[in-house]
């Protein structure tokens, strides 16, 4: 059962727009992770991981074993580099569509 129930069907469409529209799959060049990426501008990046991709990321596995530091992993540098390359190769369209 959903908790906060929208009263307008258009809200469901907004939820889809903001969380799923325009996602492009990007594979990491160093591991088997495949994530969904969106870029509304040069400096904006949205990255959706899946459990499978997370399990494949070697960087996160390495960070898991570091005793120091916080529980939250900062972004994987290798994946960031892979996304930058995908951008250079023109695989990820840059720009938003009416705010999403």
């Amino acid at each position, binding site marked *: 059962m959903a908790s*906060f129930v*929208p009263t307008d069907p258009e809200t469901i469409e907004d939820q889809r727009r903001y969380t799923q529209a325009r996602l492009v799959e990007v594979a990491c060049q160093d591991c088997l992770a495949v994530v969904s990426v969106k870029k509304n501008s040069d*400096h*904006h990046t*949205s990255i959706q991981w*899946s*459990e499978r991709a*997370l399990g494949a990321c070697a960087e996160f596995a390495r960070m898991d074993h570091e005793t120091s530091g*916080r529980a939250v992993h900062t*972004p994987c540098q290798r994946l960031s580099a892979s996304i930058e390359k995908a951008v250079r190769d023109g695989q990820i369209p840059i720009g938003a569509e009416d705010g999403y």
Partner: protein
Amino acid sequence: MTDTRLLDAGTPPERFARGWYCLGLAREFTDGKPHKVDAFGEKLVVWSDTQGNLNVLDAYCRHMGGDLSQGTVKGDEIACPFHDWRWGGDGRCKQIPYARRVPLRARTQRYPALVHNGMLMIWHDVEGSEPDMEVLPPELPGIGTDEYTDWTWEVLDVPTAHCREIVDNVVDMAHFFYIHLAFPTNFRNVFEGHVATQFMESVGRPDVAGGYGDQDMMLKSEASYYGPSFMINWLEVDYKGFVTEVVLINCHVPTSQNSFKLQYGVCVKKPEGIDDATAEYIGKKYSDMFKGGFEQDVHIWLNKAPVQNPLLCEEDGPVYQLRRWYEQFYVDKADVVAEMTDRFEFEVDTTKANEYWRKEVEENLARKAAEDALAGAGSEHA
């Protein structure tokens, strides 16, 4: 007018989120008296037993509904003010001084409780699950020792808003300029599992006072919600090159479907070469700074409308994804799906926003200088 954007207020959930809640600093409950706490639409009673353990029960006595928070602590038990039934921390009635025996069914609602980082934490789950130690917020090393100042602690009532309003702040980049009077120069979010984090760097606005510092104050902030209500915010505050490590706790307890109690505390890592009194003073200063910030937030919440369908621009943070994460605490454990907990990263593009804001602040400063010059010229002739 079909193209008019409508606000969808939605229907707030009937239940309260599953998770750990902080009721305040443990030291406030250890005076041997019963304490009343409003939470989850109920009244709770908190008391400390002879072992020093803190116990939390529903405050209404299962006999005739007496208010245990107005009772008396007798030994390990809380005694009801109405007919003196004695209730133990395990939720069972231990003794009825005027009765031959205690009814077998004399069991009341108890909330599993423990003290963690100097705070009283309780577990709440409408499904009645055992407390999940895996999702207890992390222990803060060094805190509670001589390395850090004592917690400051403040409570703010938010009588007419759902507690999701404060959680939404995790992704709200732009409000830091307008409400907290700082330039957020760097802003990122990571949600994963039961943790939602905001990474932010900011510098104070020179044109207005009363926000998160002035132009000489740079904040590096990492703030994580561990579950639905308990945030740990690690801050590195750089004031003219003098760096202070600050830990801010920001937590809340819903008191009804449309109200909550916000609590926050600050402690500061004692800077080297600074005596304790000065360190406490610095802690108090930061607490006051955040107090102003929270009060400004509360003012907004008390006057705004609930919005299920926020309309976003390109400079906004991932509100929809944050709420998708938050949803996991409002459904049965068995109904938590991967999209609520899967890792999600978002970097807000703050470049244009800061460009526009810098310009706005320049203009404010120029106008102020002109006004001051005018006032100065006037007073010379007076």
